[in-house]
């Protein structure tokens, strides 16, 4: 439908004020919030995700699209609640203890939200205990650990161990510039992806299981 395509296009171009206007206009014309979310906003983020994986667009475009998406979702929020639209799953996400870099983590968070997953941001410098506690508190489907530094990636092993010891049902996903599949296998994590878009693909697959 044209109205949803327009929202999707505007989102992809990072036109935050226009996305808010178009979302409001769609609501005013009687479209339901769930459709606007899924066919307008999330479908726009799908295109962004695919292009990002293909290196057709880069981090700035993704950040701007995600910002537009968040603005659109804010407009929809009360209506989504009223319609009883449920999230697809819950993830807790953070950068591990000792590491203060957050742009990658923020990107993943935005892409998770772009799939309809509730992403609880624990921030940076997060201890294994805090990851696990937050996962328990929120009945999370996924724990997402991010690191930029080789000096801090070892903490991810501690997160995996603690999650296992506490018998959490949450899957542990790891990512960040120095992380590799080999590292993920070595520490027994449930999943590794090389970028934020494929992280959200893996996360939604975990949520749907």
């Amino acid at each position, binding site marked *: 439908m044209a109205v949803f395509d327009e929202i999707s296009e505007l989102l992809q171009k990072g036109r935050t004020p226009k996305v808010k206007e178009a979302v409001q206009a769609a609501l005013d014309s009687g479209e339901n919030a769930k459709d606007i979310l899924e066919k307008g906003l999330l479908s726009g983020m799908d295109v962004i995700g695919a292009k990002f994986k293909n290196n057709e667009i880069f981090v700035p475009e993704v950040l*701007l699209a995600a910002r537009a998406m968040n603005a659109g979702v804010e407009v929809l929020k009360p209506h989504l609640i009223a319609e009883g639209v449920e999230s697809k799953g819950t993830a807790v996400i953070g950068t591990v203890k000792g590491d203060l870099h957050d742009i990658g983590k923020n990107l993943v968070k935005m892409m998770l939200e772009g799939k309809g997953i509730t992403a609880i941001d624990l921030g940076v410098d997060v201890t294994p205990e805090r990851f696990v506690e937050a996962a328990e508190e929120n009945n999370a489907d996924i724990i997402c650990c991010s690191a930029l530094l080789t000096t801090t990636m070892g903490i991810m092993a501690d997160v995996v161990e603690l999650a296992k010891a506490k018998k959490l049902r949450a899957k542990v996903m790891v990512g960040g510039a*120095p992380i590799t599949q080999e590292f993920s296998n070595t520490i027994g994590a449930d999943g590794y992806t090389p970028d934020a878009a494929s992280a959200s693909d893996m996360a939604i697959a975990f949520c749907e299981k």
Partner: protein
Amino acid sequence: MYFHVIACQVFQRELSRLIADSENVISVTWLPQGLHETPNMLTQRVAKAIDAFLSDVDSGNVKHLPDAFLLCYGLCSNGTIGLEAKRVPIVIPKTDDCIALFLGSQGRYLELFNEHSGTYWLNNGWIETSFLPADDAIERRKAAYAEQYGDDNAEYLIEQEMQYLKNYHFCRYITSPVFLSAKNESAARSVADKWELEFIKEPGDLLLIKKLISGDWDENEFVICPPGYVTAAAYDGSKIRAVPAK
């Protein structure tokens, strides 16, 4: 001994001084600072430098086959992984990055790292060859974004890119035994002021770099990758190991 060093430009002053004073005969290929941001590129550049030097040896341009190639690098975001040693060994310090090399040991680095979470590290080499988040480079970047995405989006993008600095608590400026620079210290203090970090001077120590170029290679501090072997990541704290090439 003859060594050929492949070094990050960040070491320009310290390594140059140590090489001049060394009993060994040492040549250097300098690679630009910052390749850790594109680690695959770093690996390729190092491999190319090794091949180019061996080519010069074969053609007679260089008169002595080195006893080893020394990398003045650490793991550097996995940039030194996947290097195959050809004909002579490759020696690499078992450190995460250059900071340990400027501090004298990986042990001292990790101690400081773990004790003082949120340290933004600076030194002369970094200030002289890299981007500092306190100068007009940020403004130029913002202007470039504004041209492409508009002013409001540009503001947002710069905020997203720089906001991690708000998470830091300290700025540690590693001083150099070979070069005292009021200008560089002042630049470091400006960064600390701008991002409200506590400024601390950390005395540099060249011991690890000295050991590298003198051939004093304790297996706890250096990986020696022999011909027919390739460097690989190690996850037991030793950072880098050598495994047989396939």
